[in-house]
């Protein structure tokens, strides 16, 4: 487990109706890396992420987390070590209060009430949301919900953090706080989404998905400056890398 590898070998997946969703996916992510998964709507990003903690199983190929292949036997270990932050915090915050929600994972890991309380407090403190502890999720703002959703995952002390479109629904300041927080988070991160500016800030490496295949895998800056690649996958150069229209016309 010491290497915290995330690896996919020849992974294929079919939707229940038979269409192919993932086609021979191969990659290896090592400890401490911060990797973005980008692509058009329906390119297979979410499907790919769901393989990382065994919510979906590949039709062919193998997913490895740490030193284990993801199988029925290793599922609990995999889910503990891969923390998944969902796109819609409302899906993730299903318990009636913040504390109970954050405690849900630790309790399932078999920790005692006292240990769980400790974990809850420290996870909430890490994301700066300790004051929300006794609130019900429906009384939280979008940014607060996102923070708490991340805390629910941190409370299980994962080795790998997976985030699906983490900046959806955040106001600019909330988004900035999230980026700052993620930058300081030192473990392996896998971030999916369309927010390429965020990717540029956080991820040194990017995978580009199109129609269920990886069409590019390399340093983020290289990929974002390949205009044709971006167009092919319905993406746009981050604003910061585009020529400024005001300055350019001067």
């Amino acid at each position, binding site marked *: 487990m010491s290497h915290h590898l995330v690896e996919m070998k020849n992974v294929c997946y079919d939707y229940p109706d038979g269409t192919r969703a993932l086609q021979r996916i191969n990659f290896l992510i090592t400890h401490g890396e911060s990797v973005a998964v980008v692509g058009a709507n329906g390119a297979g990003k979410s499907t790919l992420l769901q393989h990382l903690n065994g919510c979906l199983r590949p039709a062919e190929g193998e997913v490895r987390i740490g030193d284990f292949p993801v199988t029925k036997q290793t599922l*609990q270990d995999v889910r503990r070590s891969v923390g998944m932050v*969902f796109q819609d915090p409302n*899906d993730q915050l299903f318990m009636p209060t913040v504390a*109970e929600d954050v405690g*849900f994972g630790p309790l399932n890991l078999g920790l005692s*009430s006292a240990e769980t309380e400790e974990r*809850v407090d420290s996870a909430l403190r890490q994301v700066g949301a300790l004051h929300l502890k006794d609130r*019900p999720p*429906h009384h939280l703002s979008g940014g607060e919900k996102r923070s708490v959703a991340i805390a629910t995952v941190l409370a299980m002390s994962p080795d790998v953090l997976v985030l699906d479109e983490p900046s959806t629904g955040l106001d600019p300041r909330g988004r900035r706080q999230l980026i700052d927080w993620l930058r300081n988070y030192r473990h392996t991160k896998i971030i999916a989404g369309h927010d390429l500016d965020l990717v540029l800030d956080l991820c040194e490496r990017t995978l580009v998905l199109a129609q269920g295949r990886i069409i590019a895998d390399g340093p983020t800056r290289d990929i974002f400056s390949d205009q044709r690649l971006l167009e092919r996958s319905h993406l746009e150069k981050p604003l910061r890398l585009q020529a400024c229209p005001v300055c350019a016309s001067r």
Partner: protein
Amino acid sequence: MAGIEHSLFDLSALDTLAYQDSPIHRLDARAKVLTVLVFVVVVASYDKYAVLVLLPLLVFPVSLLIMARLPVAFLLKRLALVAPFALLVGMFNPLYDQQVQLQLGGLAISGGWLSFLSILLRFSLTIGSVLVLIAVTSFPAICHALGRLGVPWTFVLQLLFLYRYIFVLGAEAERMVRARSLRSFHGRGNGLKIYAALLTQLLWRTLERARRLYRAMLSRCFSGRFRLLSTSRFGRKELLFVVGWSGYFILLRLGSDAAAVRSWLEGVF
């Protein structure tokens, strides 16, 4: 449509009250649930013509109202909102039961009017106490209390999920209704066909939501067994609350009967 947004709004307003802080709010939910149950049963056990003897019972909801600093007007409005059924049925009492039961000076009051008044009072007491209960106790706390009082956890847990997703799905339904009304004119678009389509759409979204929710649970190592953090304790204060109030209710109840019996005996002999 205004009504719709209103009901969701009212729900969350009541819900917000429960998260305030007061000595009553801080009591363990079990104490409050038990006391209100005793209260409701005692109120219901009074004779159908009981009016004045019910009045001392008002002390319970009113004193909680004051101690918990609840907004009286808001709760009264809620009370009035749900009155129709009891009123409707009670209204027939004066028609069917015209036997004179009480002479107040020159005024003869029939049994029907007395029992009608009694129904009104019962209604205010029972519903009022429930409204106060939910305004001083958060719904999750009530669910926990139910579980710790012996209600099966399966039931309690899905109740917790229900509470959590009322707000999410309610907002979704609200958006759908708004979208429909923005494109409906002269009553067109409000028919059954569109309605059913809307409902089915909402159902798909609900099922999709349930699937994602379950996935989120699995992602956090859910393996079929729920464990909950529980912090509040049933201490001396709680015991005092339950025993004190229940004792008061029961004494009043017994007292009202004894008084009736005595005066009846005095009348006979």
